């Protein structure tokens, strides 16, 4: 279980998730206004804080992505990654279950596609992997402590 295969699997998952976060963040940074409108359409957050979220969230994604990729402040990065994917999953499920036919806004607003079941499945998978990485690091710390 802890052989080279497992290590490589963990590494690939870590690279993939951090790559997704960095790409998602970078694609949203130039257009905070458009991203704010994408957030507003979910009808989940109060209008007052939406501009702040639209401005800050892409940068959090980028920083967290680099943290997990480079293992600098790795534990904090894993915590944030779990929070982010949990939030994304809740938002997508909320929109899907309420029949909101809105753009995902996952990777910026230009060419963004409508929310569908595939989005939810992919984010659910990423959410599981992110929790898996967090759990793995927690166990490493716990055993070595």
């Amino acid at each position, binding site marked *: 279980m802890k052989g080279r295969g497992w290590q490589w699997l963990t590494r690939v998952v870590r690279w993939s998730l951090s790559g997704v976060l960095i790409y998602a963040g970078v694609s949203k940074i*130039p257009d905070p*206004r458009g991203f704010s409108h994408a957030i*507003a*359409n979910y009808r989940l957050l109060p209008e007052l804080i939406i501009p702040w979220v639209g401005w800050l969230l892409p940068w959090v994604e980028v920083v967290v992505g680099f943290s997990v990729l480079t293992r600098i402040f790795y*534990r*904090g990065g894993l915590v944030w990654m779990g929070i982010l994917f949990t939030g994304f999953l809740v938002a997508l499920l909320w929109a899907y279950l*309420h029949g909101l036919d809105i753009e995902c806004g996952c990777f910026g607003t230009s060419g963004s596609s409508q929310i569908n079941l595939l989005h939810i499945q992919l984010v659910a998978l990423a959410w599981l992997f992110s929790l898996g990485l967090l759990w793995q690091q927690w166990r490493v710390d716990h055993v070595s402590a």
Partner: protein
Amino acid sequence: MFRYAWEAFVLFLVAFFLAFGYRQVAHPPLATTVKPTYPTFSFSNSVTYQALLNVDLPDTVLLQLPEAKVIFDSGWAIFVDARPPEAYRSGHIPGALNLPYNAVDQNLEVLVQIPVDTPVIVYCGGAECEASLHLMRNLKQMGYRHVLVFFGGWKEWENAGYPVVREEGP
């Protein structure tokens, strides 16, 4: 546990200062007031009467042509034409009532034909007119809860070759 929280806090600070610095340098246009834009409503290919009754969103719900046709065929909702009487007489969806958005008060005899708890589909000339949106807001203020807008309106319906009624004459 403390280390996890501390590192997460540091990362947040880094993100905040990067965002702040970028804002100072690039001046990206930030939203001040953010309202939801009009979402379209998806029935996931299964329009049901119950789904119509579940429509109770605080803002506009837009219907697509196929959904409007399914609802029309099923008779689950009352169609309301928000255009002026002349436009209505020249052609409208069969069974639709005429309730011009700017003359609701003068058409109470039409209004009483629409039960408050019935799904209502409003439409106007097409995607370029906003009479249906205005009428939708008026109806919602009056207590109608299940109001949907068929945004493609008369133009899309007529172009699709669906049934129409024309009231010729003076």
